[in-house]
């Protein structure tokens, strides 16, 4: 254990990795602050750049963007009532009220400290639990993998927003798009329409940039800009009363976030919501929620950070990404020729432990740089979107070219931008599609192998305990959405978010 940690530290503390960890965290905070651009789009945009970096460095930077955005998102939520990042929506509720009462500084500090605590705890959990989990994962048979992926995809759909049926359809569409290209087994070209550029499949980076980066830009342009008025910051340090009231919510938020983050479909957003609901239920003064209750900031902010970090666990142990953002990380690993899965821990221990340690270091950096820099972030909010989005367009276009020196890929970005926009219009979230896309080939391979090993016997999926377990869970989750009472409850949770 200690050896691994030492290895992790030695990797994470190298000059290059430290620099890119800092850069990622800073960038993440920046885009977390700026509304209209989120971590998904940013990671998609930076994927081409990670080409030129070491795999560890690339992942360190991309991870930094993810949890950095959680920190940054809280700043805009509190000061401007605009969630810079989707998981910060909850922080708007009480955080902005606190700001209006002149207590923005306290809210910001509570958010930052709570997030840091959660980050430390989550890192500790990762250190303790990933090795045994990876050990279990090594014993997975193809049927177990299939069942797990089914569960993962179903869970991602159920726990996500919007119509579950449409989300499942998007997942299947993603799976199909993932199959475009050359079939590994037979060498046949599938769905390539004779285009030689598609022989290796649809370029993941182009798809991601188009769907998330460009699609988001087009949607934002439709909405028009909003006037940004930021509240004053006031006293930065929370009162003793704030500390007393925040302690338990931070702890509960951390635990809740860590658990929910590991679940497929989990991550920052779900954790933040769950924590808010929990704190409101447990509070002796629930009427204060929505009026500046510090618990409403402390809990969700800790939860979203814990959730963001632990959502890496399924990727690093089982090789299965739980949400769209982690799926991008999987994509980044694959670009570098690393197949995510339990072997990563064994074959690339430097990468594995270095990444985990750097997450902790990143959290520390964020705590130290964020509070002083808040004034800067607020000023940046004044940059009008009409100047920002052409820059994003440019980076996406050049970035897409840079992956394969292919103008075809740039065209793909344009195409998927329009497609992404169309899907948003008909009410389908693009995120599940990316999940399906990443898992497509893996799913087919395991599916094939399962039936090969069982000589065509379909009951093989119901024979091993692990696969029965996951399939049952998936069925239960599906039942959850179909049952009307559950459906109402789920809608209520998301309705709270809309208001």
């Amino acid at each position, binding site marked *: 254990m200690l050896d691994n940690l030492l290895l992790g530290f030695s990797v994470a503390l190298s000059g290059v990795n430290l620099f890119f960890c800092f850069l990622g965290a800073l960038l993440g905070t920046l885009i977390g602050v700026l509304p209209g651009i989120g971590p998904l789009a940013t990671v998609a945009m930076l994927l081409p750049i990670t080409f030129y970096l070491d795999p560890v460095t690339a992942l360190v930077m991309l991870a930094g963007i993810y949890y950095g955005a959680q920190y940054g998102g809280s700043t805009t939520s509190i000061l401007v009532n605009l969630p810079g990042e989707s998981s910060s929506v909850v922080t708007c509720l009480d955080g902005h009220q606190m700001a209006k009462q002149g207590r923005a500084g306290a809210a910001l500090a509570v958010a930052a400290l709570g997030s840091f605590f959660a980050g430390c705890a989550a890192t500790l959990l990762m250190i303790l639990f990933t090795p045994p989990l990876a050990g279990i994962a090594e014993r997975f048979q193809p049927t177990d993998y299939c069942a797990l992926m089914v569960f993962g995809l179903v869970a991602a759909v159920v726990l996500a927003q919007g119509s579950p049926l*449409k989300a499942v359809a998007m997942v299947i569409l993603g799976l199909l798009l993932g199959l475009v290209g050359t079939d590994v087994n037979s060498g046949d070209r599938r769905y390539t329409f004779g285009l030689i550029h598609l022989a290796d499949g649809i370029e993941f980076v182009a798809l991601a940039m188009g769907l998330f980066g460009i699609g988001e830009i087009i949607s934002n342009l439709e909405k028009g800009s909003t006037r940004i008025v930021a509240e004053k910051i006031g006293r930065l340090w929370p009162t003793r009363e704030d500390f007393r009231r925040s302690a338990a919510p931070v702890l509960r938020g951390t635990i809740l976030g860590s658990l929910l983050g590991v679940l497929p479909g989990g991550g920052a957003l779900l954790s933040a919501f769950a924590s808010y609901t929990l704190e409101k239920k447990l509070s002796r003064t629930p009427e204060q929620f929505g009026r500046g209750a510090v618990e409403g900031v402390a809990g969700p902010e800790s939860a979203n950070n814990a959730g963001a970090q632990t959502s890496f666990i399924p990727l690093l142990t089982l090789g299965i990404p739980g949400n769209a953002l982690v799926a991008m990380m999987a994509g980044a690993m694959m670009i570098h020729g690393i197949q995510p899965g339990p072997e990563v821990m064994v074959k690339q221990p430097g990468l594995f432990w270095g990444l985990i340690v750097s997450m902790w270091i990143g959290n520390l950096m964020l705590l130290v740089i964020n509070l002083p820099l808040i004034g800067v972030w607020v000023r940046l909010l004044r940059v009008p979107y009409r100047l920002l989005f052409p820059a994003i367009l440019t980076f996406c276009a050049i970035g897409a070219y840079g992956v394969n020196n292919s103008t075809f890929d740039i065209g793909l970005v344009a195409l998927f*931008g329009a497609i992404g926009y169309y899907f948003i219009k008909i009410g389908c979230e693009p995120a599940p599609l990316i999940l399906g896309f990443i898992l497509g080939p893996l799913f087919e391979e395991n599916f094939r192998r399962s039936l090969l090993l069982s000589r065509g016997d379909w009951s093989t999926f119901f024979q091993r305990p692990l696969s029965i377990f996951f399939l049952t869970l998936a069925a239960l989750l599906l039942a959850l959405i179909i049952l009307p009472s559950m459906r109402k409850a789920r809608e209520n949770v998301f309705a709270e978010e809309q208001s």
Partner: protein
Amino acid sequence: MLISKDFLAGLTFMVLGLAGLIIARQYDMGTPRMMGPGYFPWLLSAGLMLLGAVIFVQGVASKAREPLEKIHWRPVTLVTLAIFLFSVLIERAGLIASLVLLIGIGSYAGKEARWREVVILGVALIAFCVAVFVYGVKLPLTLLPG
């Protein structure tokens, strides 16, 4: 109105699923034991078509229909056009010319474009890109035509 979000979504998935199905039939199906390249795509396409049908029926039968949001043509057309033109020109006319078109057309996809800002932003962005991508990262891009 009949054409709600679900109506279109269901239709889209049905069409895509059907297309996938028809194309998958052209590949070797094989048997469950020895799956051919067409097997899994066929399964997935069939599933997609089925789901599309369910969503479509929901869209037609349900009383609560989410109406299609207004489609603003300008952002989507200009952004897509700008990127597409960029892809066509970058190897033929060089980076600078294509960036001019990308930033020029793209900026006007929004409602609030002001030509002075676009010019300044364009110059700044082009300078940045040339510095970072051509000299820094050494992407093989030609700057000028020919």
